[in-house]
């Protein structure tokens, strides 16, 4: 087996073509499941593998599948390819380079819950990526791997690509379902969860692209093989998206928990250090704009869900943005707050209004018109948002604010003009006295 489980196209040229994928073991897991496994056995294998959702939440995939009721039809699988978190570009590479592994994983998910249709919801900006995926799906149809009575069995399944139109919120699974139904992307009240009330009110599994790309090797090689990689609680491989002030940004596949932030940023086979020998790491964003930033003291944290959480943040989608000592933290926080204000869908008042006011305060800070109480004001606004919204966007928006204030409060002070100082007393003997006074 090669070095890669997910980014196999880096070792196998032209892997996006069906004939090449088939020559390298492609769709063998699909064949195995259809001809020798019951749907429940597929679910049990994925459960046993310990695979956790790679979109950000880290929820166990097999458990998610097991929540789907057996006796309600039709059912759907929806692939979440609305990759929009700042600093995240892994699903794009899978779909461009190794699309059949995603398709095969989505088919296995469909068989496991006995869904009749799969929709791949791709962000509108990935139109060129969607075309590539559509070409791969067409190839799989033509080869009888998707469609009626797949591979001569009595199972039939359809697969369609659906383009979003520019809205970060649609990466949230219930907003995504609303969008797929032709509505604006407003998150739904939960419960009910998509497993019982999803697309068109039917049982639905929504899984991230990278999550599904893990499924074919699990089914083919077994859960115990999968568990030889990663850690006990975070098994398997993961793609780490590295961006920011590093020499070699990019996607890097590694076992969960086996490398640290320092390895990823400075390692010869990874980021190869910062832009400039003399530079140092100031802060790390482990999951794009959404998770709390960490100071350089967290550099030796292993990259798995538990360790990053213990360090005070979240691994999330593992989109690691590196800020070096040249980066102004207040400016960086402003950029992220601006993102969330732009992307708030407007449904929940604390998020809609809160992101707006956060942005207003940051705008005056970076314009040099900050007020002495602005740090406290920002914290107060953030407190009125966190935990008070239907979806996590409201919480995410407070992350850059609260974490930057926690670790880099001094940088805010530089943006607050000091009150005019009292006139300095002139040295004795130089004061002009006004005659007659």
């Amino acid at each position, binding site marked *: 087996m090669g070095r890669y489980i997910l980014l196999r196209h880096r070792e196998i040229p032209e892997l996006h073509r069906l004939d090449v994928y088939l020559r390298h073991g492609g769709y063998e897991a699909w064949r195995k499941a259809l001809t020798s496994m019951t749907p429940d056995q597929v679910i049990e294998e994925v459960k046993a593998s310990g695979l956790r959702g790679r979109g950000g939440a880290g929820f166990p995939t097999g458990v998610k599948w097991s929540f789907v009721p057996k006796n309600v039809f039709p059912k759907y699988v929806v692939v979440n390819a609305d*990759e929009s978190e700042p*600093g995240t570009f892994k699903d794009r590479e899978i779909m461009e380079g190794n699309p059949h592994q995603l398709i095969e994983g989505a088919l296995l998910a469909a068989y496991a819950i006995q869904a009749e249709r799969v929709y791949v919801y791709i962000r509108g900006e990935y139109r060129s990526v969607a075309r590539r995926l559509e070409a791969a799906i067409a190839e799989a149809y033509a080869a009888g791997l998707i469609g009626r009575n797949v591979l001569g069995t009595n199972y039939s399944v359809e697969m369609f690509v659906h*383009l979003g139109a520019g809205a970060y919120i649609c990466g949230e699974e219930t907003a995504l379902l609303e969008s797929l139904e*032709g509505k604006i992307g407003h998150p739904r009240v939960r419960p009910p969860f998509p497993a019982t009330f999803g697309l068109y009110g039917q049982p639905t599994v929504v899984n991230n692209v990278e999550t599904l790309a893990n499924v074919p090797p699990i089914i083919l090689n077994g859960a115990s093989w999968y568990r030889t990689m990663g850690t006990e609680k975070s098994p398997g491989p993961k793609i780490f998206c590295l*961006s920011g002030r590093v020499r070699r*940004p990019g996607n890097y596949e590694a076992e969960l928990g086996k490398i640290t932030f320092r390895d990823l940023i400075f390692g010869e086979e990874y980021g190869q250090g910062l832009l400039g020998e003399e530079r140092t790491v100031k802060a790390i964003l482990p999951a794009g704009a959404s998770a709390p930033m960490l100071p350089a003291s967290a550099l030796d944290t292993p990259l798995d869900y538990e360790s990053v959480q213990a360090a005070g943040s979240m691994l999330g989608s593992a989109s690691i943005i590196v800020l070096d000592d040249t980066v102004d933290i207040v400016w960086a926080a402003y*950029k992220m707050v601006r993102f969330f204000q732009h992307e708030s869908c407007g449904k929940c008042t604390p998020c809609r209004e809160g992101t707006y006011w956060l942005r207003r305060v940051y705008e005056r800070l970076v314009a040099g018109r900050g007020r002495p109480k602005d740090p406290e004001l920002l914290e107060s606004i953030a407190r009125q948002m966190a935990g008070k919204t239907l979806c996590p966007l409201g919480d995410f928006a407070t992350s850059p604010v609260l974490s930057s204030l926690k670790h880099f409060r001094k940088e805010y002070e530089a943006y607050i003009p000091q009150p005019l100082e009292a006139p300095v007393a002139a040295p004795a003997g130089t004061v002009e006295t006004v005659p007659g006074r």
Partner: protein
Amino acid sequence: MLREKYAHEVEAILAKYPVKRSAILPLLYLVQQEYGYCAEEGIREVAEITGVSPTEVREVVGFYSLFYDHPIGRHRIQICDDLPCALRGADELVAHAVRRLGVQPGETTPDGRFTLETVMCIGACHRAPAMQVDLEFVENVTPEVFDRIVGDLSRDGM
């Protein structure tokens, strides 16, 4: 208009979904292809095809950033100035684009050729700064690359 000129496409779109309303987003992309933006005539037709009110279609147009309710330039230049790109020179690229095109982000050049926009993360942070020109990726953009693309598109005769 859509149903005559794009009969095949409309039929293929509707066949993908058990509920017609799901066709709104793909149909609006067709409308933009035909009119250059989500023109009122197209919105009304999408409403008729999908069986919802024109107001509901307008709501969708207003919500998503890739739909436009007003005419835009023939070419859309969308520069990402989100944090990962800004850490690698995106703000300077935007300033260059503003100078080169003579318009501010959100504006269209007087000849109607280019609309310049700044956008949030487009998933190209490892090749930053990045932009999309008519939704195609252009990555590791230098001022020279930008000028060459604008130059090429200025000579396309359209």
